[in-house]
């Protein structure tokens, strides 16, 4: 009996300690999805910094964040049943790739060419979603419904949204810190294309104008893997 009381007390104390630790941590975080939550604030900052570059793309039924030079854009929709092609996608100028040997016919089905732009992305779902009035609200809807699409690129200190098949749109967690804290975190937004389908479709990666074909450290800690990507980074400030 005495032993049982001791055991029950010990378990009780352990449960209280665990509860306290969890409460403290969750209270600090506000939510378990800290990446999603953090990404909303950063994304909002990016939107604010490129105010003139954010427009609603009627054709694709989504908000579009355009690069300062107009050569690329990130399109996202908060109303998943409305977007005709993809719910999240990149829209990039096809010309540099075509000049580097791209045979459009050889691209996989998740690539589309529209008005001289290459569109690549993914469908998140078919649910109705809310009629979102603001680009931030549309993004929040994605975070809420498809949190696993949102990631964090540790070596760059960037948030990212997966567009499927290794394609990403990344933005700085804190644009203010760019270049001052981490040398690597030197751009505010980055359009990331997975090079393999493009190379398979005839692109000579070294000849793509306006895109950096380089290795990027992906993954975490010791497992961070160096992978080749096409990058198109921009500073917004």
């Amino acid at each position, binding site marked *: 009996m005495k032993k049982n009381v001791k055991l029950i007390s010990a378990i009780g104390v352990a449960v209280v300690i665990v509860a306290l630790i969890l409460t403290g941590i969750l209270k600090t975080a506000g939510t378990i999805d*800290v990446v999603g939550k953090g990404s909303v604030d950063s994304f909002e900052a990016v939107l604010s910094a490129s105010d003139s570059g954010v427009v609603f793309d009627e054709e694709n039924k989504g908000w579009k964040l355009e690069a300062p030079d107009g050569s690329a854009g990130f399109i996202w929709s908060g109303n998943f049943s409305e977007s005709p092609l993809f719910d999240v996608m990149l829209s990039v100028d096809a010309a540099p790739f075509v000049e580097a040997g791209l045979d459009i016919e050889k691209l996989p089905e998740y690539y589309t060419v529209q008005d001289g732009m290459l569109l690549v992305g993914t469908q998140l779902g078919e649910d109705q979603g809310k009629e979102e009035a603001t680009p931030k609200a549309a993004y929040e809807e994605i975070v809420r419904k498809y949190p696993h699409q949102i*990631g964090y690129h*540790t070596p760059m200190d960037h948030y990212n949204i997966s567009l499927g098949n290794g394609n990403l749109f990344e933005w700085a967690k804190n644009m203010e810190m760019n270049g001052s804290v981490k040398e690597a975190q030197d751009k505010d937004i980055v359009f990331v294309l997975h090079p393999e389908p493009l190379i398979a479709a005839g692109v000579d990666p070294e000849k793509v104008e306006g895109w950096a074909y380089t290795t990027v450290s992906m993954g975490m800690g*010791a*497992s961070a893997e160096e992978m080749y990507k096409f990058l198109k980074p921009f500073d917004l400030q």
Partner: protein
Amino acid sequence: MKNEVLNIRGMTCAACAQRIEKVVGKLAGIEQASVNLASEKLFVEFDPEVLPLTVIQDKVKKIGYEVVEKTDSSTVVIPIGGMTCAACAQRVEKAVKKLEGVTNSSVNFATEKATVVYQPQAVRLSAIREAIEKAGYEALEINRQDAAKEDRERKQLEIKILWTKFITSAVFSLPLLYIAMAPMITIVQLPFPAGLDPMRYPLLYALAELLLVLPALGVGYKFYTVGFKALWQRSPNMDSLIAIGTTAAVLYSLYNTWLIAKGNFMGVDHLYYETAGVIITLILLGKTLEAVSKGRTGEAIKKLMGLAPKTAIVIQNGAEKEIPIDEVEIGDILVVKPGAKIPVDGSVVEGRTAIDESMLTGESMPVNKKAGDPVYAASLNTTGTIQFQAEKIGSDTALARIIQLVEEAQGSKAPIAQMADIVSGYFVPVVCGIAALAGIAWYFGTGGDIEFALTIFIAVLVIACPCALGLATPTAIMVGTGKGAENGILIKGGQALETAHKINTIIFDKTGTITEGKPTVTDVLTTEGVEKNRLLQLTASAEKGSEHPLGQAIVRGAEDAGLPLFTMENFESLTGRGIEANIDGHTILAGNRKLMAEREISLTAMEEASDLLAEEGKTPMYVALDGTLSGIVAVADVVKQSSRAAIEELHHMGIEVAMITGDNKKTAAAIAKQVGIDHVLAEVLPQDKSNEVKKLQELGRKVAMVGDGINDAPALAQADIGIAIGSGTDVAMESADIVLMRSDLMDVPTGILLSKKTIQNIKQNLFWAFGYNVIGIPIAAGVLYLFGGPLLNPIFAAAAMSLSSVSVLANALRLKRFQTTVGKGRVSRP
């Protein structure tokens, strides 16, 4: 001064043992304090008038260890029959409690059992049973708890608890290790729950790790309670190292979890929960294996303890009654039937039998016993039923004394352990210092990489292993002395063990050692006019007062010849020379050449005959009647069968062998020749034997003296190692360093070889224990990494640390394979 042995619980490494020794050793009134980590015992020699035992116990408790109270009380569980309600239980309880000497009585009606705590010296168990029966209930067959069983059960429980803790820890730590490592492995794509993806759900990932490490930390709570307490008391031990290392890992991880919660996801790369969890698991595994191995080192004692029977048949009021062994009292008449064990020491009063005393002497041949002969507890009655009177009970029996001697030996320390003891005392603080210095150095060396510095800090703390150092010597001594005891070789401690292996000269006493010690009269030669039987009769009558084996042989010779002995007067024993007595109006001198020379008695008439007898290995005893040589009584002793083989074996081991005797030179030379001895020291008086030993020691020899422990105690004491041969007599036990229970000389080389093997084992253990730390700590501190080599992960450091203790124990247990092949002229080498 008083000696006491206290059972200590809660020690985890040599540093704990050192601390107890140090603290207790400082108390006023303490002569000596020695802790054996392997047997978990504190041996204290103290002045009880200056320092009560309770003060020592309190001091040990105060520094954080448990002293298992020794109590004079016994506990017995008696099944009760005939109880019908709770009131019956109350009644039985009251009836038993009323008895003087009963400390507590508790009756459980549901289980129908009475648990009684009582003092055996104040109340007999039979009286308790009688009280129950008088109250109207039935006292059924009892279930008594004995100390050995309790100890065994305690150790088994300890192993079970450790095993459960290890399994619990492993169940949580393995998935923890998996989720910590799987995302880092790039060679193969290991399945991983998407919901825990550290890149997408870093907080969930960190919390999952935290939740998985908590059970491991919970089952390893003792590392923290003991470790931090010891640290607080400025005597850190192995637990402190584990506690500091894993706490640092957990705190750093908690900090990073908090950072993640705050939005700094870089923290996900700096979680070390799995390091703490796996370290605890591996250390628990090591501790479990260590407990299993430690239990095996003390098996010899357990075997000895298990020899004693649990009950005895006593004759009470003319009827036989079976009672627990603790109930036997001195003076009781006990009955032992064929096939049963003798319960206590005593003397046969009725009946004849043959008793197998191999447990005491190692001699497999049963010994015939008749009325008046002694019998010993735990020996086996083989043929007839005997009745004997109990003379020594409890801790006074020969078996109990042997157990005590072996226990003391196992608890003793060898001088070779001193270095390990000194190092252990400073080990943990030094390791803490090295860990801190290495961490700081790497922190600055890497330009402020706190994570790298932490890895180094934890690895150094966790790899350092004071346990291996602490276990190196006592485990080998325990197994070595235990193995000796199993073979009838009682080595009285680490000092004896260590000295014995250095022996290069052995001196054997002749009578009773090289020879059987049961001489017989072979020749009676007389001068003209003296009748042989008359001479033997007079000499035997005079020798009746002598305790010397030769004198007793002459008495037996006369008795065998049917010669009645005369009344002797004015007997005087002339040490080393002979005797003098008055018989039937004559003055009789019987003794050696020296005695005759002193009394100016001419030996010319019998010189030639005397020399001839001596050359045949016989001892001529000159007899003078009223100052005139009247004849010689020659006595000869048979050389033991094993003597020649044993001496050959000793020669084979490179040991010089000498024989010492009070006998004349020629007889001694003849015996020496028979057995192949190199040097003979003849005509040496008993009091001069120690001088002869001393002379050899002055020549730089390490000398062992082998004797029967009766008349050569000074020589045994003077020798570097005194080896008493023959039996467990009190004198032998007291004066010798090694006691050989049987009379077989082959046990001498066996004992020396066992000591060599044990010391060799200790050296191997110390080499590995020191070597492991000397190599492991610099590697953990990043010395190899500094020169482009690998960096040691703290998890591997913990695994290595656990294995180091286990490897030392496993090596010590190899000694259990030591075997002897007596009688073939060789001692087998493991």
